[in-house]
């Protein structure tokens, strides 16, 4: 029996994806609207994109978010990968259950709790809140997503290559960098990207842990959204959606090359 789509399946797919995408498509379309009114089409225009270039605070916030995103994603990828290696390769060790719990809980933990608890920690430690406290907070929750992504790759990886390297006298460290890491590289890269987009997207945790002079892009957008829908915000959102979409497409095409030929990737 070859899989085939019934009419019901086609309708489900169409309606489901229409529901998922229609709001985003409308937002993008109306970012090119000449009129300031959201429902009235006043002709095609890129004036709101031009207006963005003159919006100093928004550009500054974007720059802050970009730096926090790159820094926190990088630290999160290192810590998250270490945790994944420990959970998959070390068998049973003291604290394994606790580590598993601490890795999975942040995935679903409501952000208001994480944000408030980290803020209270920074206050108790008497740390000045700002750029670095937001970065640190982002590392803490996004590293868990990295762990889950890398873990799923490590579990399916062929262990015989690592064993061969060890048998040939490679140290565990050399084995990791020369055998394991190249094989899990796509998952590590995906983990970094996920951590980066999570950081770029986060409003709640950043609002709690930020201080003067470190307003992130979501915080700035949220401040303007509360005042109402504006085509300028639509334009900013469209740029963010465009960047993420392009990155995902590029990544999935690049990793498909590696994943489509498992013989080459795993048996080289």
């Amino acid at each position, binding site marked *: *029996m*070859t899989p085939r789509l019934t009419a019901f399946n086609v309708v489900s*797919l169409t309606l489901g994806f229409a529901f998922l995408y229609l709001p985003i498509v409308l937002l993008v379309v109306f970012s090119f609207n000449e009129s300031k009114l959201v429902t009235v089409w006043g002709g095609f225009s890129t004036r709101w994109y031009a207006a963005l270039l003159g919006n100093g605070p928004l550009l500054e916030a974007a720059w802050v978010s970009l730096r926090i995103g790159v820094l926190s994603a990088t630290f999160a990828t290192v810590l998250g990968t270490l945790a994944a290696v420990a959970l998959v390769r070390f068998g049973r060790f003291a604290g394994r259950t606790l580590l598993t719990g601490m890795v999975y809980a942040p995935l*679903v933990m409501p952000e208001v709790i*994480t944000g408030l*608890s980290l803020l209270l920690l920074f206050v108790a430690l008497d740390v000045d809140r700002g750029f670095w406290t937001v970065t640190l907070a982002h590392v803490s929750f996004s590293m868990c997503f990295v762990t889950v992504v890398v873990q799923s790759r490590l579990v399916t990886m062929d262990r015989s290559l690592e064993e061969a390297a060890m048998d040939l006298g490679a*140290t565990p460290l050399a084995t990791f960098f020369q055998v394991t890491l190249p094989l899990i590289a796509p998952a590590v890269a995906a983990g970094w990207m996920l951590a980066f987009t999570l950081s770029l997207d986060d409003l709640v945790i950043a609002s709690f842990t930020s201080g003067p002079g470190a307003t992130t892009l979501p915080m700035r957008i949220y401040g303007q959204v509360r005042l109402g829908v504006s085509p300028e915000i639509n334009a900013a959102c469209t740029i963010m959606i465009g960047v993420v979409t392009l990155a995902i497409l590029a990544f999935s095409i690049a990793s498909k090359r590696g994943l489509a030929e498992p013989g080459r990737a795993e048996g080289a």
Partner: protein
Amino acid sequence: MRSGAERRARAGRALVAGLPFAWLVAFFLAPFGLVAKISLSEKANARPPYRPAFAAGDGPGDVLDKLSALSLDNYRLLAEEPLYLDAVLTSLRLAATATVLALLIAYPVAYAMARAPGRLRPALLLLAMLPFWTSFLIRVYAWIGILKPEGLLNAALAWLGLIDTPLEILNTEWAVQIGLVYSYLPFMLLPLYAALERIDPTLLEAGQDLGAPPWKTFWLVTLPLSRPGVTAGCFLVFIPALGEFVIPDLLGGSETVMIGTVLWSEFFGNRDWPLASAVAVVLLVAVVAPMVLWRREEARRTEAPT
């Protein structure tokens, strides 16, 4: 006798597991203790705006003094003031309804994805993943333009001649419900798809060969086998939705109050950190049980042979 290499390997392993472990203890687990502690202290007009319950330099006498000063006043207030109980009940109701609706919408979509020809599946999976990567804030914001009185939905309905006066949807519970279902749909879709795609097609063939009508094959084979995806999806939607802040704040207006919005306004609006902490403890208690259940399911699924 242990060789130097072996000792180094052991030290290396301790470092690999120890670093993320120490990080998560310091920045995830330990702060909950602070939340609990501050939820028992009193609000004060100071910086930080609470009277500390304990401090590092306390002698035994200080600790005794402060123990007697510890107050459950914040919790008493939460229990007595109907506003807070309402927020808890509203959150539970909205999160549960969102979970059921997301399941009903996502199941046929995930099913169709899993039945699609193999060459179409990667593209469909990508389509299902993209919203997951797109900013949450942006996707919630998009609904304001659709739902507001002069928004796109009312314009479309008026154009179709279905309504004369615009529907009030934005700033009602309806808007929050739509926002929750929409935002968390990918979290339901992806585990459902993963579970449905794993089902061995020969099992379905066997059902058909034995003369079962399609609905019976679905009911007796597909549905039970997709159960791990259903439970994973339900937890992934229900738990974060319970403590949601952005959606009720942007779409619900002042009428729809959820636990997350109460915590936010006590903290940022009233600067009542102790009360906000007490709300956080209540929310934490509410999410811990489903979280433990979720982990138990996941552990069973990953450890069971497939």
